[in-house]
């Protein structure tokens, strides 16, 4: 088996040198694999992605992050990105004054194959007709969901080897969520590794090969996507099934794995 696309070993990370959020996280994304990362609010999912991207200076304070066997700790964020990682940030990360088209062009900044880029743009527009309509509109004035489309499309434009998405379904209408997950799946089928951070566990696990559950900075559960879907706790806390009514869930809210 070829080496992992992305591998984290015992990563500890946090903010401002004092606050620690992740306490020894190890996970792996194999080439062409689709991995889902679940976890409740404040578990540290976004922190994990930021740490991988080298956006937190001086982090990880312990442990190792390797991309295709190379240790990337200490690399500049730009360099990590150029190693083939596309990252859809939480909160969409729009360049508000730039038009939709310009945002998409930036996604393809490092690509030299102009013809293929044009082809990809067509595909994107087919997938999100809304964006074709609004190609000239400054992103800052788009609706929340439209912005989310731009963020995902922009990442796709770079033809990454690893696609990391932080809550791509945030603020998207159900039909679009389905379409987007379908797209992610097909891109994954074409060989792109995917690390998917999601709250929408049902859909995420539906397209993932493998899943991890992060709680309070620790991985508490991992396994094949189907196994997780069947797990009692996952069903209750992430899928909202298991017969609980809203009030019951409220009463049970303190319940956690440990």
């Amino acid at each position: 088996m070829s080496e992992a696309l992305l591998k984290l070993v015992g990563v500890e990370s946090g903010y401002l040198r004092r606050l620690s959020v992740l306490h020894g996280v190890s996970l792996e994304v194999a080439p062409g694999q689709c991995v889902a990362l679940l976890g409740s609010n404040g578990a540290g999912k976004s922190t994990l992605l930021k740490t991988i991207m080298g956006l937190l200076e001086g982090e990880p304070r312990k442990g190792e992050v390797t991309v295709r066997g190379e240790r990337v700790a200490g690399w500049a964020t730009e360099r990590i990105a150029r190693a083939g990682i596309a990252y859809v940030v939480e909160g969409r990360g729009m360049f508000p004054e730039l038009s939709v088209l310009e945002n998409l062009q930036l996604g393809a900044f490092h690509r030299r194959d102009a013809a293929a880029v044009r082809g990809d743009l067509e595909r994107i527009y087919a997938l999100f007709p809304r964006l074709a309509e609004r190609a000239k509109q400054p992103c800052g004035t788009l609706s929340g969901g439209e912005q989310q489309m731009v963020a995902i499309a922009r990442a796709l434009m770079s033809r990454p080897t690893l696609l990391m998405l932080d809550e791509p379904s945030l603020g998207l209408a159900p039909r679009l969520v389905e379409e987007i997950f379908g797209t992610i799946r097909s891109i994954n089928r074409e060989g792109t590794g995917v690390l998917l951070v999601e709250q929408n566990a049902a859909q995420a696990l539906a397209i993932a090969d493998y899943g991890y559950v992060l709680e309070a900075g620790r991985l508490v559960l991992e396994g094949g996507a189907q196994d997780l879907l069947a797990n009692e706790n996952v069903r209750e806390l992430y899928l909202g099934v298991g017969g609980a009514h809203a009030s019951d869930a409220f009463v049970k809210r303190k319940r956690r794995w440990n």
Partner: protein
Amino acid sequence: MAGLLQALVSGLAAGSIYALIALGLVLLYRTTNVLNFAHGEFGLLGTFVAFTLLHGAGLPYGLALLLSLLAALLLGGFNSLLLVKPGRAALAVGLGVLAGALAYGLAAAWWVTALVAVLTGVLAFARLEPTARTPNALGLIILTLGVSLALGGFYALYFGTDNKVIPPLVPDVPLRLGGAAVSQLSLLTSGIGVGLMLLLWLLLSRTKIGLAMRATAQREDVAKAMGLPVRTVLFATWGVSALLAAAAALLLAPTTLLSPAMMLDPISKGFVAAVIGGMTSLPGAILGGYVLGVLELLVGVYLSNEFRASFAFLAVLVVLVLRPHGLLGKPEVRRV
């Protein structure tokens, strides 16, 4: 009538310098969101280098100018990397440089300076905690203010505070134009200003790197995460902006005499011009420069010389109340 024509011509001449300065300020603001208080000092470096090369080293004129522009470019670029947006290594180097400057100020012996600089740099690199070093917008402005003071102090110390004479780029023989005398120097200045504006405008709106520059200005973290060459962009914008400052200072110095305080007034006029035109618009910078130049002349000649600045301020206020983002500037995109 000839008087009015001459006033217009002279106003445009003054405006051409303001425009050039405003262009540098706007370029930087648009691409980094920083209002650079050290713009004048960046420009002065070029001029002092030119002076030294001409009088000390006796280099030919053209070469001296070229080298001095290069010096300004490097100063601007390194300033951004070492001080304004430093990484850890850069911060260590920057702190070393600063500690060196401190030592130089206190002791003025080169070996002490070098020793302190190197020691601080090494120590900083080894021990510095990489906290989130993100000064807010005002903090960045104050940082450039510090750079301005330090550089200005350094020039005074190193080059002296006396007035220095620098030969003009072109012999300033006026051309006659329908009863008005037009300065060749200001024609040249206008040409340089408009030409550079067009070039920069093309760069920003038509090229990939220009797109990256605009993106970096809006969300630096996202630009980094997308692999855009953020550091290169920062180096380039600060460098080019400093180069514009140096061009303005070199054009101005022959008439106003070169001294560390020379750029104070033109720079503040440049700020005003940039704001009139709109801080986000390159053509606006040029327009603002000419508007301010002509406005000052007309007010001074026909209204009141004593209250020229006050009237100019009033006019600016009127412009801003009517167009809060300047003549050609666009409001920030904002929605909830």
